[in-house]
């Protein structure tokens, strides 16, 4: 029999609480599409939590990184999923060296260090989990940690932000009113053509004519939204396609891989998107 190693139990499951707060050192590339930077800064100054709404790949996460850099606060991102429990957010007891030790979850950690806690895709989390952020998200700005018998008061630097894609048709993916009405919402859409072009060029280094065609392709796929596609091609997909093209992949192949196949599995739709791409390149 091997000698039991103290702490093994804790090691058997990597605690979610070890999320390191990340300082963004270099300025991330970000093009504002409206007044979102000012709005966020005002919310930060007045300590109102922020909800980022918008389709996938339109720059919500990049915006958070940019704001963290701009405000010089550590950014703690939690990607929400349907197994995320309240303990995963707040923290839990673990056993180390024959004693139980409290380990903060990412939310508690962000509150303690006055960082930005960004809950990505909040609707993916279970509804009972999202309720734990309620006391933090109104003017109380507290986080009760019942198991630890502690009441955390958020410092004024702390920001609670979350993202949400309203495009899901499913009723299960709706945000509860009691949650959403605590937030200032910033609406994100795909940037207009000229700005999107600028972004694609800046991110990939392809020439402007090619970028124009990529934008056209994105518009075409966005026309198909609701006619068989759940979403049109996001700016992120265009950047992917652009990067492949910049690496010397032929444009049609790049679009087939980075745009068509990424958007859909339906054979007819795949073919249609590929036909659209090949009509442009």
């Amino acid at each position, binding site marked *: 029999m091997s000698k039991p190693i103290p702490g093994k139990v804790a090691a058997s499951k990597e605690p979610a609480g070890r999320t390191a707060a990340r300082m963004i050192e270099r300025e991330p590339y970000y093009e504002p599409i409206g007044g979102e930077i000012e709005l966020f800064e005002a919310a930060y100054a007045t300590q109102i939590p922020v909800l980022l709404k918008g389709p996938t790949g339109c720059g919500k996460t990049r915006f958070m990184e940019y704001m963290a850099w701009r405000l010089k606060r550590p950014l703690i991102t939690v990607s929400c999923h349907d197994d995320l429990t309240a303990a995963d957010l707040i923290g839990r007891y673990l056993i180390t060296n024959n004693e139980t030790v409290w380990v903060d979850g990412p939310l508690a950690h962000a509150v303690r260090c006055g960082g930005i806690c960004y809950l990505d895709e909040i609707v993916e989390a279970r509804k009972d989990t999202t309720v734990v952020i309620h006391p933090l998200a109104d003017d109380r700005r507290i986080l009760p940690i019942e198991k630890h018998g502690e009441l955390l008061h958020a410092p004024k630097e702390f920001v609670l932000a979350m993202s949400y894609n309203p495009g899901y048709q*499913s009723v299960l993916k709706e945000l509860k009113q009691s949650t959403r009405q605590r937030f200032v919402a910033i609406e994100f859409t795909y940037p207009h053509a000229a700005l999107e072009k600028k972004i694609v060029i800046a991110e990939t280094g392809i020439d402007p004519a090619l970028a124009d065609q990529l934008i056209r392709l994105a518009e075409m796929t966005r026309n198909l939204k609701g006619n068989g596609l759940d979403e049109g091609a996001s700016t992120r997909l265009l950047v992917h396609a652009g990067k492949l093209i910049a690496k010397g992949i032929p444009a049609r192949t790049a679009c087939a891989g980075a745009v068509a196949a990424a958007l859909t599995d339906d054979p007819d*739709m795949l073919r249609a998107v590929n036909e659209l791409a090949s009509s442009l390149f």
Partner: protein
Amino acid sequence: MNSPVPSSSPAGKLSAAQLEERLDESLDPVLSSRRTAQPLAAALAPLSRDLQDFALHWVAVIARTSGELAFQFATLAPDVLRQSDPVSAESWIIHAMDTFDREGLYRGSSELKNVDAFMLASRHNSNAVAFEEAGNVLGLFICGLAGRPLKLEVANEAYTDTETLHLPARIFARASREQNFLLYKALATHLWAQSRYGTFNVDPADKLATFADPARARALYNYLETTRLDAIIARELPGLARELADLRDGAEAPPECALLREPAATAADSLALVEALYENFEPPTLSYMGVLHPEIAQAVRASRVAREKKELQAELAKLLPENSGSADTQPADGASHYSVIATESGSTPDNFELVLDGSPVTPPGHVNDLMQSITQDLGEIPDDYLVTASDGVYRDNSTEEEKTAAVREETNSEAGARFYNEWDYKRRHYRKNWCVLREADVKPGDPDFIDTTLKRYAVQVGQLRRTFEMLRGDDKWLKKQAAGDDIDLDAVINAYADLSSGRELPEQLFQRRLKVERDIAVMFMVDMSGSTKGWINEAERESLVMLCEALEVLGDRYAIYGFSGITRKRCEIYRIKRFADRYDDAVRGRIAGILPQDYTRMGVAIRHLSALLNGVDARTKLLITLSDGKPDDYSDNYRGEYGIEDTRQALIEAHRGGIHSFCITIDREAREYLPRMYGAVNYTVIEDVARLPLKVADVYRRLTT
């Protein structure tokens, strides 16, 4: 292909007399004293037994659809079978029958007689591309190209009326499948471009009619427009333009056409050139040129222009801020003036911003689409479109507009109808767009019915609720887990005891919460055929009441639809409760209002309801049919094997989409045919109708646990 493969049979050829007897049997309704099967039999007699059998089989099959068509087939069969193989002959027959289904006897028989052209095409059969294969992709392709939404339909010529693109049923002009598909795509793109880039915006019909030979002028205009649109396509869709160059076969436009290639060229320039070139230029025909029907297009466009003006004005009125409807804030003339800013990303604007009294208003998506469509027709949004009606008129307008919108929606979808294929087991092919299905609402019935039922079954309802409450998912804590949300303190204390007594520390020290979730969507399809009249209907309604009580407790998503109809042209689905509806008084009223209607054409109902069910996001999808008998319909031989096989096929389609089907029936003879349709275990027969209300919920409980 699925025909009986001709194989050598030990029996010898059939004699003319034997053949005549068999033909008489199939063709009886169309034979007369002057038109007998004798010459047909004589012509078939010299064929081999295999080919004779093939011909007789198909005569019988076609006769089920149309005796006349079968007679014509029998006339043509000897020659055709001698010259071609049974596989191409079969596709020729199917093609003719499809045409018959779609367009009637005249077109069907002309397709049948057109056997030479078909055989020529089928010689390249492996290379031909049919609309059924390409249509879906092309539809999406055209939708992606933007502009007004366009429908695609099969027709004998390729043309557009500016709202529908008509394309040929198959294309085989080229040597390879890729090339034939490209030709399809090129045709569709050009028709799209005609609508998008204003070929019909200059009223060409009036002008072209003034020429001595309007057909010639129209062909010339068509060619010139093709040249102009080719240049636009080259600018907008360079990849496609490169591919089109291959199809052009080196044909070059005359020098006069150079100006049509300018970015500023419009349809008016083409029209002007028609005059210049009319006398001495013979327009070539390009393979990807359709034909023009300017009169049709012009009429469709004119009615759209008038309609969209009203629509836009009404929409703009809706966008007015709430308070500006009141008299004191209204301008003296009672109307508000918008102005419009279009943001352009290509050659045409694709987004609009409205300005009202100096403040910008972003129009919602459908208004933006409307404005795009108007710009496509008129080149701009004329000023008078931007004047909303004054306050009083506004309200009238809005209701009128809603009415027209509703009517338009109906006409858009062929008077609210949907088309479904139906499986013909004899042909072993689908009959395309065979059934016409409409959704209708059930008129609410006597509200007392529900109360009476609930009272009558009060005890059972109580039991039912308790049973279903127990089914409801509750959270469970799983103790002694290797990983979990929380420490299992009991386990830890035990572990400490173990540890101090020198034993190994167990790893199972956590507890985990297990959420039991039911992720079920269920669709109830209720037989509303005439045969349910009386107590069966009452039992059905009572069953639904009990079921709803139970399902409300359980929280499963459910919908209830009734089905009935008479003939394939009038299949009906009755909305009783949609997935989104709550179980409220309106739904209760509709349950009470379920009345026996006509017949039981099940296949089409299953196809429609499984499509609805597939629109719901659930891990488990159930389609439960409440029925009292076999599939049956007034005509087209739906009764019997045909209906059973079509229903079976529809259920197989549903199953492919991940839907589990189940049938609850009161037909005691159901054991003879239900296993064939639903499979050996997916049905239950309830012998005693009176027990139906109690049994249905019970069956559902068994099905979902």
